[in-house]
């Protein structure tokens, strides 16, 4: 059986355009990235800024094109899917709760949008589904006709998640969905993810720079460093004993709220930089 998402040896580089006529050099951002994600699983991708984790998300979402390699959804190259079929299969949730909702549209319009574009629903059915989804993500019905400006950051992120779930996609791509939130709100959103996983059997590619968040939510973990996945494995095994030196560094740099411990030593012996 095919995994729901498979990335095969993806390479991607950003061309730097030197002026109007120049060719410039290409900066590699993804280097031979491969991963598999089975239905019902959450794969956490962790890495620091510039590691290529967001690029990976944009690649899967077809917002970028790989130089080589392939992205397969259920065994099918994702570029072969029609926009509608792709939208029905894959949906995104982004980091910034402010940029991810159109300030000029009401929640009802925002949430109906994926259904309108899918084209299979009459107006009555769209409204019913929107109301049900509001309940599902814990937003009061009276917010239906309000604008994003009237919502808190946590509420906005609930709307963004609701929008992604409207068409019941099989795969959710979450790019740092809790990074812009306060810890108490982050906890609310993580709890919501737990519930949604249970109810919808969500499959999820969950990208974060926060190892603690990844540990909470992910079944499998992939560590990205400079465009490569340097280690991936089952969650508990990984956190019990990461193999790659960079994974160990990352894990030891995460500071738990336990007093009395010294700061870890974070020399990077393998990477004199």
């Amino acid at each position, binding site marked *: 059986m095919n995994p729901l998402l498979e990335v095969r040896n993806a390479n991607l580089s950003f061309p730097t355009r030197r002026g109007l006529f120049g060719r410039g050099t290409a900066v590699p951002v993804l280097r031979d990235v491969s991963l598999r994600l089975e239905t019902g699983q959450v794969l956490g991708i962790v890495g620091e800024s510039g590691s290529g984790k967001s690029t990976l998300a944009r690649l899967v979402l077809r917002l970028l094109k790989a130089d080589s390699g392939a992205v397969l959804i259920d065994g099918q190259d994702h570029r072969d899917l029609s926009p509608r079929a792709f939208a029905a299969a894959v949906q995104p949730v982004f980091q910034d709760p402010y940029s991810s*909702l159109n300030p000029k549209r009401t929640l009802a319009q925002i949430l109906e*949008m994926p259904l309108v*574009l899918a084209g299979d629903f009459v107006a009555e059915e769209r409204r019913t589904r929107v109301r049900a989804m509001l309940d599902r993500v814990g937003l009061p019905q009276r917010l239906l006709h309000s604008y994003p400006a009237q919502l808190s950051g946590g509420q906005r992120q609930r709307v963004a998640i609701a929008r992604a779930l409207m068409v019941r996609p099989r795969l959710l791509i979450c790019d740092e969905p809790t990074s812009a939130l306060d810890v108490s709100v982050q906890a609310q959103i993580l709890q919501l993810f737990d519930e949604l996983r249970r109810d919808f059997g969500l499959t999820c590619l969950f990208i974060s720079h926060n190892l603690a968040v990844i540990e909470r939510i992910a079944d499998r973990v992939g560590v990205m460093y400079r465009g490569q996945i340097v280690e991936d494995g089952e969650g508990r095994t990984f956190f019990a004993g990461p193999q790659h030196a960079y994974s160990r560094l990352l894990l030891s740099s995460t500071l738990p709220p336990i007093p009395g411990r010294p700061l870890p030593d974070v020399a990077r012996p393998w990477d004199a930089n």
Partner: protein
Amino acid sequence: MSDIALPDPRRAALRRALRHGGLIAGLAVVAAVVLLAVFAPLIAPHDPAAQNLTLRLIPPAWQEGGNPAYLLGTDHLGRDYLSRLIFGARVSLAVGLSVMVLSGLIGATLGFLGGYFGGRIDDLVMYVITVRLSMPGLLVALAVMSLLGGSLVTMITVLSLLFWDRYAVVTRTAVRQLRQADFVTAARVAGASHRWILWHEVRPNVMPQILVVATLEMAMAILSEASLSFLGLGIQPPTPSWGIMIAEARSFLFAKPYLVWMPGLAIFALVLAINLLGDGLRDVSQPEGRR
């Protein structure tokens, strides 16, 4: 769950608008001038073109030798000055509004294309904008008007073809930023076409800025019409245009200065009101700060 009760942004904007003195004042003056222009034949006491050489250069009613029937006096051909001022508003508004709309269509379209699609299309749009900016607008307008002969339609066409640059620049910048927004990306992933995204996601967010530019361009068009007509290469007499009135009164600058300052004041008041309106719109649509 107790919420922070945040107000509906549209209602908040309306409240800000009603409290904005400049916006209300500007709106009132513009509305008054529009009414004057529309109902000019009913309001004007005399036919603006009717010459009466026996009634030449009557001073305004409050000055010595004034005639209450000619409240603001008469010009060198004995035409009622007040009536000419009222009818002059028609030319200014016709030019201002038409140029605002037409140049807006040109400029905004270019801005949307360049800003949204980027790449080579944007290079082309930027090139067209640069070409336009490096041409002296007023000079080109003068030259073309001189060759084609002045008429209202020519004037509107020429100005519209020249004064779209600010629309293009502002729209392009705004659209470029919006293109990066996550909600646009979300719409793309949801399968929306470019046209759908431009109309539903991008356009509503750019409209406030386009509206502000629109007021600026309307003001600009009115000033340009006055300048061209003043130089004798715009609207042709006997059509009453404020610019022509100033040009005709110029020979009496020393003897009858009010003939010059009255139409000038009319231009000034209308343009100022439009600018106030634009400033107010900007304040209302960008509550975070006056820029």
